[in-house]
């Protein structure tokens, strides 16, 4: 009996040894790394489902390549690829910035959150103008130390202009923001110039200047507090605020 137990034990040990050896064996001779080719990063992001009721959650999935520095607005720095459960209370646009030696790539996806089923009196009120403004009008992002509207932001300007011209009674403020690497006073002047640049782009496109106020916050009110380019980019923007 004792003999049998020992035999069984020996078998187990032998099996384990074989398994471990096999495992060790696999590690040998990794292929030499391919020569570094500074390729432009790619980025994609999606959310499933893209519409949820308030209180439910959805899965955010993203994939990047050739990126060393990946961040998602509102989430922060993330792995190059992955997925995450999100359950925002309001509709949210997820903005992914992938930065690598070959450049910067951005991708966005939008999760629409429907209000909870109206159990009480007002049956499904249409979203207020302020909500529409918040959901539709896109902030404009800037390059470091620059205050001219970049080519890749023209689409946002066009979309903003379309909405603002459709809702011509809305007044709003454009806040100019800067990343925190510069000097306080200079950043306030730069933020002023950024807010003015966005205002000018809209007024040239037909938005009445009397609807638009500008204010600079320099580096006084950052959106993101980390020390990396993804975060700095978040802070270099013209931010739209609905004016009640």
């Amino acid at each position, binding site marked *: 009996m004792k003999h049998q137990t020992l035999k069984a034990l020996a078998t187990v040990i032998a099996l384990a040894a074989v398994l471990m050896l096999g495992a060790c064996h696999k590690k040998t001779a990794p292929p030499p790394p391919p020569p570094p080719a500074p390729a432009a990063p790619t980025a994609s992001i999606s959310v499933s489902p893209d519409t949820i009721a308030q209180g439910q959650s959805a899965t955010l999935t993203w994939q990047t390549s050739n990126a060393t520095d990946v961040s998602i607005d509102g989430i922060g720095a993330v792995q190059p690829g992955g997925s995450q459960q999100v359950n925002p209370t309001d509709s949210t646009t997820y903005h992914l910035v992938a930065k690598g030696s070959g450049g910067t790539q951005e991708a966005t996806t939008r999760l629409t959150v429907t209000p909870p089923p109206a159990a009480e009196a007002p049956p499904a009120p249409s979203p207020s103008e302020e909500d529409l403004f918040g959901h539709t009008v896109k902030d404009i992002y800037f390059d470091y130390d620059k*205050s001219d509207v970049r080519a890749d932001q023209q689409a946002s300007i066009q979309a903003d202009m379309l909405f603002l011209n459709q809702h011509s009674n809305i007044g709003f403020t454009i806040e100019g923001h800067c990343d925190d690497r510069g*000097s306080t006073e200079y950043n306030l*002047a730069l933020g002023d110039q950024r807010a003015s640049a966005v205002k000018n782009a809209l007024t040239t496109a037909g938005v009445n200047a009397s609807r638009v106020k500008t204010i600079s916050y320099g580096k*006084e009110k950052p959106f993101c507090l980390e020390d990396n380019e993804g975060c700095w980019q978040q802070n270099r923007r013209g931010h739209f605020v609905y004016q009640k």
Partner: protein
Amino acid sequence: MIADKLPMKTYRGTILSYTVSFCPGSRNAFRRMNDTHRPRPHCASGARLLSALSLLILLCSLLLSPAFAQDWVRTGSGLGVEKVRLAVPDFKPSNSDPQNDELLKTFNDTFWNDLDNSGVVELISKSFYPLQVPGQPPEVTFGAWNSPPPNAAMLAFGNLGVAAGKLTVQGWLYDVKNTASPEVLGKQYTDVPSSDAARVMAHRFADEIIFRLGGGIPGIAESKIYFVSDRSGHKEIWVMDYDGSNQRQLTHLSSDSLSPRVSPDGSRLAFSSLTKSGWDILMFSIDLNRVVSFPRFGGTNLSPAWSPDGAHLALSSSRGGNSQIYVCDASGANLHRLTSNKGPDVGPAWNRKTGAQIAFVSGSTGLPQVYTIEADGTNQQRMTDQGYAVSPNWSPNGQFLTLAWTRKYGPGEPGSRDIYLMDIASKQWVQLTHDGGSHDSPSWSPDGRHIVFESGRSGKEEIWMMLADGTKLHQLTFTGHNSQPNWSWK
């Protein structure tokens, strides 16, 4: 054109010629001294000579190498090698009042610190002092002080005591090598017995000594530093003594208030604050301890700066589109535009000696650079050649700018922003801070020997000060985030 690297020889020449022209007559007096080789530091006829020599010593020690400075000092001023060797034994109690101990500690600490920070004397370590230190003139044993180990040239001593509800401090400065007529200075101060009074007395007596040993330039021990602090939860304007003591909040606006600039007479403080209408210049009366009226200009208004006569303010305003430098009266009237550049212009600073030029920052060519312009708007000159240059501040003698500068900026150039000093005429520069993270907002002391600035070297934004050669670096604030220091004009 700016030299890539500062050629030391030329720079020395610049400083020296400045020194000589700053004190006309010093050259002749100096030559006379060379002939006689006799130290006469305190006789009446030597007074101008003493101040000229001390100024030389100061500037030599601030800006030149010690070896070079010795050539000038060894010629018979009798003041020691580079700086006056000063012994400062603790003041002694003059009676047995129980309050004396605490007041003596405050007085002695403040007094030592003032002299140590002055940059004009070499304090001799207390471990070299004889066991018996004087509290009164008859107790001075010259031989114990004027020969090694202390080998002092000067001795500051005195006593403190509380009697009949009054605090009295007596202090003397002795030239201990001149045993026949040693007294350079004798002072008595009386006030209520409080640690504030003891601190003020220490500041006053230290300033008297620094004035005499530092070339006739008034000391700064009673000067103030205005700054921005967020320790109340908002960025408000605060003030402290020059040594970091006595910190208190001036504004209570519960908004963001920045860029404090005190008027030359110390009665008013201009600053920029986020109001309902945007960034406006506000005026705070230090006498009335409240914000007083000042016009709103529209647009983003930043970085006010006083002209040295206190009659004008320069500021940055975007009321006409881009941020540009404007000038107005101290009342805010007669606002007119000075610059017309493409990029944002901000951070003006007047030439504190002449009031004839204004230095400022412009981003018109990309990264911000420092420029100067005549106060009438002509002759705009670029001062910095590269990098990211901001926050110019003019030295009291009108000769130098101090500024915050990242000389190399961009990907793969993780340079930090350091404090620099630039000679205006030659555009030659020296780097004053090193390896301490990001620095900004340098401001000169009234005596031109010190610079206060903000630095992240402790891990967060705090206010530091140093001598204008980058030595004697020390931290003044420790609570919350503190920034944008502005030194009072006197």
